[in-house]
């Protein structure tokens, strides 16, 4: 059976291990072998934890031999975005600043994976401190898209998405602040879920924009996303912003279609900014839902509208609002990396402690991170707070109200995940603003604290995956996943395999 281990979904792999058809040890070896073969073309991993993974797999196999109960992820090899703290290996956030950082604690989501029997294969690459949409802002090296190594995998969870697509892990965790799970999931042709804010504990996730950050799963199909979401969700006393609310069994209800599903169609998202092929793929999805008995409802999200000026430049309240909130929070969250408390310290002689801070930060942090820290510091400064941060909070409230109104009329919203398919490495690095617009369809979901699911809607003529996004009301991940599953089943678009694994 070992010759097709890599073709098994996480759910199938778990069943195979639980039934004894396959050992966790065999599964890990198959994945370590795949990593060895494919990583040179991908660079999805910052660190492969082979010894640790083998030891964890042995544990699972021993458990089975002893007749002990098997967890819901027993023997499933999982990759972790490298901003999730693990007591083994490093937690670098793909920053030179934290290149040597080893956390003495475990992120709650990771602890839950381990408890469920998952085997941690390694830590995946990201845009430094999760700031970016292409993984090119990694302080170490960019990751390539498994569908076309000249293209980006998206970001910031680009390493996790690429590894899931390239079958160098069975599933992965990422984090999503403005689209960082969904956008790379779309670019790499996998399924990514950003849960409701507060659904998954943020304890052990190195913070970027604390009021927006949320950990979520990436998998090859909707069932795998549901399986991982079941495991990592739930209240955590270590995170005051996690919500004390019973977690449903997402996987168990997955194949129950949503009766009388009302699919919301936000017209604002279908402007000229949208790539034509993506538009028609989403329209096809809409038609398929109609065939499945769903009603399509036109809804309006005026504050998430995307405008195009005469020169063709895009703008959006949501994007502006997002960058003010996220950068303000980031400027404060990253203040501790000063070379004295944490992180890289300059070797050069310094005049005083301020000089030491400045030089260490200048050397240890990348361009995009410095840009965001400076912008965030600026918007929080006396005299600017009202014009920027305070106003952004008001816009954030308006965006949330738009969604609340929309969900009075429909169950889920259907829209694109990204305005384009995966772009070429280096294409947007010179112009940060264009890069920021890669997230125009995903960031309002974070601002409103809603759950969002990206799943493959097809493949473009150029052979690149197209993602569609389903957005739901708070704590209705179950609806999103069931609606996603309906599409997946009816369309047959599932478990897309990039050429490198075919």
């Amino acid at each position, binding site marked *: 059976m070992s010759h097709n281990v890599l073709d098994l979904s996480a759910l199938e792999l778990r069943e195979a291990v639980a039934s004894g058809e396959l050992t966790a040890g065999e599964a890990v070896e198959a994945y370590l072998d795949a990593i060895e073969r494919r990583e040179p073309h991908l660079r999805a991993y910052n660190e492969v934890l082979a010894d640790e993974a083998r030891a964890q797999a042995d544990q699972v196999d021993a458990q089975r031999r002893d007749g002990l109960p098997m967890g819901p992820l027993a023997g499933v090899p999982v990759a972790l975005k490298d901003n999730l703290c693990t007591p083994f290996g490093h937690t670098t956030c793909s920053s030179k600043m934290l290149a040597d950082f080893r956390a003495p*604690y475990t992120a709650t989501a990771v602890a839950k994976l381990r408890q469920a029997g998952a085997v941690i294969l390694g830590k995946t690459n990201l845009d430094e401190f999760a700031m970016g949409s292409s993984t090119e802002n990694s302080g170490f090296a960019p990751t390539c898209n498994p569908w076309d190594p000249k293209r980006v995998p998206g970001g910031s969870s680009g390493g996790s998405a690429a590894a899931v697509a390239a079958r160098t892990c069975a599933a992965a965790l990422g984090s999503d602040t403005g689209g960082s799970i969904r956008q790379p999931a779309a670019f790499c042709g996998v399924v990514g879920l950003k849960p409701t804010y507060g659904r998954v504990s943020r304890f052990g996730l190195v913070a970027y924009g604390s009021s927006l950050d949320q950990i979520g799963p990436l998998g090859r199909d909707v069932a795998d996303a549901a399986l991982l979401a079941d495991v990592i969700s739930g209240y955590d006393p270590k995170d005051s*912003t996690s919500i004390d609310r019973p977690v449903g069994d997402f996987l168990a209800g997955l194949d129950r279609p949503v009766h009388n599903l009302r699919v919301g169609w936000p017209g604002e998202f279908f402007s000229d900014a949208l790539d034509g092929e993506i538009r028609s793929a989403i329209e096809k999805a809409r038609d398929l839902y109609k065939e499945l008995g769903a009603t399509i409802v036109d809804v309006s999200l005026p504050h998430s509208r995307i405008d195009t000026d005469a020169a063709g430049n895009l703008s959006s309240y949501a994007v502006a609002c997002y960058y003010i909130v996220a950068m303000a929070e980031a400027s404060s969250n990253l203040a501790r990396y000063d070379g004295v408390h944490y992180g890289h310290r300059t070797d050069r002689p310094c005049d005083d402690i301020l000089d030491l801070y400045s030089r260490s930060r200048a050397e240890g942090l990348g361009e995009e991170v410095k840009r965001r820290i400076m912008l965030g510091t600026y918007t929080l400064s006396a005299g600017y707070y009202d014009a920027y941060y305070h106003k952004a909070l008001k816009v954030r409230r308006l965006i949330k109200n738009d969604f609340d109104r929309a969900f009075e009329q429909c169950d889920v919203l259907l829209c694109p995940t990204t305005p384009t398919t995966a772009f070429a490495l280096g294409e947007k690095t010179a112009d940060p603003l264009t890069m920021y617009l890669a997230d125009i369809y995903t960031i309002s979901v974070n601002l409103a604290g809603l759950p969002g699911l990206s799943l493959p809607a097809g493949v473009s003529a150029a052979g690149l995956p197209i993602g569609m996004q389903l957005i739901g009301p708070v704590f209705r991940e179950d609806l999103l996943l069931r609606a996603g599953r309906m599409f997946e089943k009816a369309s047959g678009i599932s478990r897309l395999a990039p050429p490198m694994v075919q």
Partner: protein
Amino acid sequence: MVESHDIVKPIIGLEIHVELATATKMFCRCRNHFGDPPNTNVCPVCIGMPGVLPVMNRVAVELSMKVGLALNCTVPDFTKWDRKSYYYPDLPKNYQISQYDLPLNVDGHIEVPLADGSIKKVRILRAHLEEDAGKNVHDNPAHTGVDLNRAGVPLLEIVSQPDMNSPEEAGAYGRAMQRLVRWLGASEANMQMGHMRFEPNINLHITRGGVTYKTPIVEVKNLNSFRSLEGAVAYEINRQYSEWLGNPDYTLDKCGKQNRGWDDVRLQTVFQREKEEAHDYRYFPEPDLVPVLVDAEWRERLRGQIVELPLARRARYMGEYGLTFKEADALTQDAPTGDLLDAAVAAGADAKRCTNLLLGRGAAIANERGCSIAEVGLSAGQLTDLAKMTDAGEINATAAAKLFDKLAAEGGSPRELAQAEGLLAVRDESALAAWVEEAVSANAQAADDARSEDPKKRKKAFGFLMGQVMQRSKGAAAPAAVQKLLQEKLGL
């Protein structure tokens, strides 16, 4: 030094930082304890490691609300946390979790007893909760060490309105606040351990020829004793007036606000070099914590836990127990001492007798040990027995004092101890008669004087003979019985 035609009015406001006496820190479960080896009470949260999150200590919030309610503050329904950013080695995250625009307590007042017995009302602007920073340790010329045991300790910042007008009033306000927070069990308020720190704001309103001039508001940072507080305020009043006399442009309009430090050796405030830019703390709402929602039920439950406050109790002691102002004031320095008195009185002891015991040996021992009278160690039951035995003539005052000391040192039952130590008053007539006989025959002159016509002489001689009898009994004779026998013996 004030020129005769100037009216100089000092305007003083005070910020007081009070470390709360919680078992654990504000946002983690590390021990909140002074004096442990450096960096032993720390964890990933209070040293601000990447990825960890703060979790609010509810006890600290409740203690702060109790202080606020006792200060007659409004405790709003909605209060939140904010981040205050500045870079400093003793601040692990380079921001402090504090409260900016929506503090836990607002708009209150405190009645401050002044030395002359009058009461000064000082308004409270706000009292908010925050986490303390660590401490830089300069014990090595080559390096500065950082001790983070204090980082994350809950700190209540109480900000007054500028309602005080003299160093004495500032000191009295500080002492009243110290007494209040101790009273409520909110803080040990021990100055040596840095539990209380003061930052006075001082300026002068000088009226000359019908025009009022205001000197710049000077904030003196980080004073940690009442002596330095009063010293710094007094020094600033003089310094600002002299400076204004020498420079008419030394005004609030032209110079703004200034920070100064306090030199504890030279006893003067010193100019602190201003940063090129004004401090910009870049406050914004703390996203890692949820707002604190206070409902009426919670507020009233805490209000119900606030016991009778010092000034009310002092008035009751004077009215109900007939104590003097001085006695009542001394017994209301902390809550447990008064509780001791109240419990003994409730058990039937005489208030005045208990007061004498508490303010006699009690105060003396407390002074020696540097603790409160209640902490000397006598229980209400022991105090009750001691007072009752004295009043019943079973022991005399000297014996009561001796027993007090013994009980404080070793504990035990006053009655058993008095028996064991032979301190019960001797009432055996034959033993008393023998001592009376000896005293009279050995002091014939005094015996004659005791019978003289001169009442003054008579009284003095009788007292002398009483003393002689007591001496022969080694203090054990019951004075009332001795008096009776001695009168009989002298035929009075």
